[in-house]
């Protein structure tokens, strides 16, 4: 079993998935911390009223808004970009699984992974908010 082709392919896939998750979390943590430090050192305003829900400003709710804020090094946009990297990490793992199962010629799991990716995609653009 250990010397079969499939065993090593499985091992390689596990290793790639492990690395993807690790780098996703580490880069997100780095970006979020950077934004957080900027936020702490530049913030001189009063604390926002978190005790009642006010809806986050539109610029932090969309990809376009967050990227626009990044260009001005707006601290909250940098944090939100770190959050985006974090959200993208497990999604990237699902997309990689489709590819990996395709390499293994395990078509049943290509379909299963594609369904999971489809559900997340629907959640993103389905206007559920």
């Amino acid at each position, binding site marked *: 079993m250990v010397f079969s082709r499939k065993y090593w392919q499985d*091992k390689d896939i*596990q*290793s790639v*998935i*492990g*690395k993807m*998750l*690790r780098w*996703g*979390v580490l880069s*997100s*943590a780095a970006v*979020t*911390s950077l*934004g*957080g430090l900027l*936020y*702490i050192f530049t*913030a*001189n*305003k*009063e*604390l*926002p009223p*978190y*005790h009642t*829900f006010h*809806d*986050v400003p539109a610029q*932090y*709710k969309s990809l376009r808004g967050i990227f626009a804020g990044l260009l001005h090094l707006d601290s*909250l*946009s940098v*944090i*939100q970009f*770190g*959050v985006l990297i*974090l*959200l993208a*990490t*497990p*999604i990237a*793992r*699902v997309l990689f*699984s489709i590819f990996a199962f395709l390499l293994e010629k*395990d078509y*049943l*799991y290509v379909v*299963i*992974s594609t*369904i*999971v990716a489809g*559900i*997340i995609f*629907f*959640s*993103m653009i*389905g206007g*559920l*908010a």
Partner: protein
Amino acid sequence: MTIVTFTLIILAGAFLAGLLGSLTGLGGAVIIIPLLTLGFGIDLKYAIGTSLVAIIANSSGSAAAYVREGITNIRLGMFLEIATTVGAVIGAVIAGFVPSHIVAVIFGLVLIMSAVMQLRKKQDHLELAETSSLAKKLKLNSHYPTRDGEIHYAMRRVPGGFLMMIVAGIMSGLLGIGSGAFKVLGMDYIMHVPFKVSTTTSNFMIGVTAAASAVVYLQRGYIEPGLCFPVVIGVLAGAMTGSRILLKSGTELLRKIFSAVITVLALEMIYNGITGKI
């Protein structure tokens, strides 16, 4: 309070939550939400959005290590993620209609359930003969490495487990938690997945499940960057510290104390929900 003081206090609280969550194996989210709402009076919607982001960080970080050890059953995880992501989307949609005080009561009840399940006896089922044909068709039966060689295992009652995972997903999307308790019900009790495999596979699924509802919450304005920074970084740092500490003794006592604390917090969440304070 200034932004700096507030951020540092939340950072410290989130660090403790991550540390305790990792040492006891209960996860950080179960105390992050009571900490933010009961402790700091933050609106439940912000707390749920922030917690979802924190558990993605936590689960992805530890899944990275588990996956490489080869204990996580990736096929089982992928298959059940269909159920948990569908549930997560349903949960996020429901959250748009259910008032916060009812969400608080449900949260409290789920919290009590998690605390009770901590007291259960861990029992591994390794009957290879009892497997179902569906489990074979889906190639779910597998094995994992131990010091004494590979342990083979088989599972059964796949549809029942799948249904329970939809519930786990709904709770995760609605409450912003990892729903470990429901996943254990589905995998350990219904499907008879060995404990080590179910824990790591459940952890593997949390990130994808939370991401499915977090993308809705981001657009809905529940994910507040000013809160995400101290909570995500705090929980992550706490969990990483926790995984490096090997408690020689006292783990059992710590779990009991932690379960008791969670129960008290749960009752307070339920009380505040019923009286409309949340």
